[in-house]
């Protein structure tokens, strides 16, 4: 019996050992599979890196972003201010834009106008502004960035405000990606610039005309986005006289924004883990004098006039 026990114990030990080996083997296979996936991804990334290396080298590790022009113009509607077509760049002006510099800036301008029209359900004008953007995009050589199915979807969703917004912003994101990955970053920067200038033009005109506090504040909050825009444009300062003048005028505008009093208080945030939402409770406040409001508004009009005519 003792011998049997020893044999049984050995058998049990062997079985445990075998199980352990089998488990380890399976675990190694599992990890290897994961590593193979990683290596494949890594190789893919290397190949991808080769394709875009010229672009990657131009990027820095710090980027300056701008809030969506759509959001700025949306605050006009949410303040119950009526639609004002006079604020838009007329579609007839499109024939004036002969250079790539003007075309890119005005794709941005018309894009913001398109968003503004969409917010106020101005369907017939949405169609004509979209047509103008398509025309300028073609002249600028961006037809490859505009996928045919996107154009079809936009045209089919003209009457659906929400879908149209998704498609318009999606189109501008595609433009942006195309320009960044096809060594045409400057056109992308100009589209961004035109869009931002048009949005603060709409804000400033409404601020002056209505004296609405929410709109005035939104205008005052553009100090950091303007600083960011100047940072984005600065690598092109010496590229041409047009760039130099544009950037100089924005720097001049930034001096006026320095006169706005901006205060900030940090407060703890609340987290809703289930819905993946953090509420940022920190407070900011903007104080802008009537003098600064008028000066800023005039300077924005002046910059915009040079772009759209």
């Amino acid at each position, binding site marked *: 019996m003792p011998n049997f026990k020893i044999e049984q114990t050995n058998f049990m030990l062997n079985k445990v050992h075998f199980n352990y080996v089998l488990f380890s083997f399976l675990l190694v296979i599992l990890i290897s599979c994961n590593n193979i996936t*990683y290596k494949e*991804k890594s190789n893919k990334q290397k190949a991808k890196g080769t394709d875009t290396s010229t672009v990657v080298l131009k990027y820095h590790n710090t*980027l300056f*972003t701008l809030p969506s022009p759509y*959001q700025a113009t949306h605050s006009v509607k949410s303040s119950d201010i009526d639609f004002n077509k006079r604020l838009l760049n007329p579609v007839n002006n499109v024939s004036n834009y002969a250079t790539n510099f003007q075309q890119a800036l005005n794709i941005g301008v018309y894009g913001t106008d398109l968003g503004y029209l969409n917010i106020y359900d101005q369907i017939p004008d949405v169609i004509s502004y979209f047509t103008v953007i398509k025309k300028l995009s073609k002249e600028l050589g961006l037809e490859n960035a505009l996928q045919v199915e996107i154009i079809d979807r936009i045209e089919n969703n003209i009457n659906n405000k929400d879908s149209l917004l998704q498609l318009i912003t999606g189109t501008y994101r595609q433009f942006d990606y195309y320009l*960044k990955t096809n060594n045409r970053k400057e056109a992308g920067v100009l589209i961004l610039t035109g869009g931002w200038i048009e949005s603060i033009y709409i804000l400033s005109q409404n601020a002056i005309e209505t004296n609405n506090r929410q709109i005035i504040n939104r205008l005052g909050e553009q100090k950091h986005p303007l600083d960011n825009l100047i940072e984005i444009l600065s690598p092109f300062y010496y590229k041409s006289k047009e760039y130099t003048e544009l950037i100089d005028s924005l720097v001049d505008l930034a001096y006026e924004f320095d006169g706005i009093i901006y205060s900030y208080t940090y407060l703890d945030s609340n987290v809703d883990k289930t819905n993946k939402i*953090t509420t*940022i409770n920190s407070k900011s406040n903007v104080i802008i004098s009537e003098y600064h409001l008028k000066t800023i508004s005039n300077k924005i009009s002046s910059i915009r006039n040079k772009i759209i005519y």
Partner: protein
Amino acid sequence: MKLFLYKILILIVTLTINFSANAQDNSTTNCVNLLNEGYVSDGQEYIAKLAENNVAKFYCTFYGGSQYRIIACSDITKYPLILSIYDTEKNLLFCNKEYEYTPYWNFRFTSTIDCIVEIEFDTEKWLKEEVKLLIGFKEK
């Protein structure tokens, strides 16, 4: 032996399901697919190269009264992507380390705030890769 193999099979299935559930595809090609559920793109694709400390920084302004989704993407899978958001006084507003390194999170801003969004990889080796940030805002 059969029982053991059965247990192993269950273990593999469990691990696979668990891995799939936690791992959201935040590769640069799939990034835009994380911008859904009513969030609209701000119209930009922010692509930055990692600095020597494996950090990329993005200076952003978020409007008060708005809700945003911030998505961080990369093709690096060997190290977890750390997404942090600071105000300009360097107060930490969010870090995804506390939420299983989720590649995206939603934010509701009560006031307009300028922020610094950082994408980082915790390793000594300079990864020299590019990372992508997408920002979406919620339609009202």
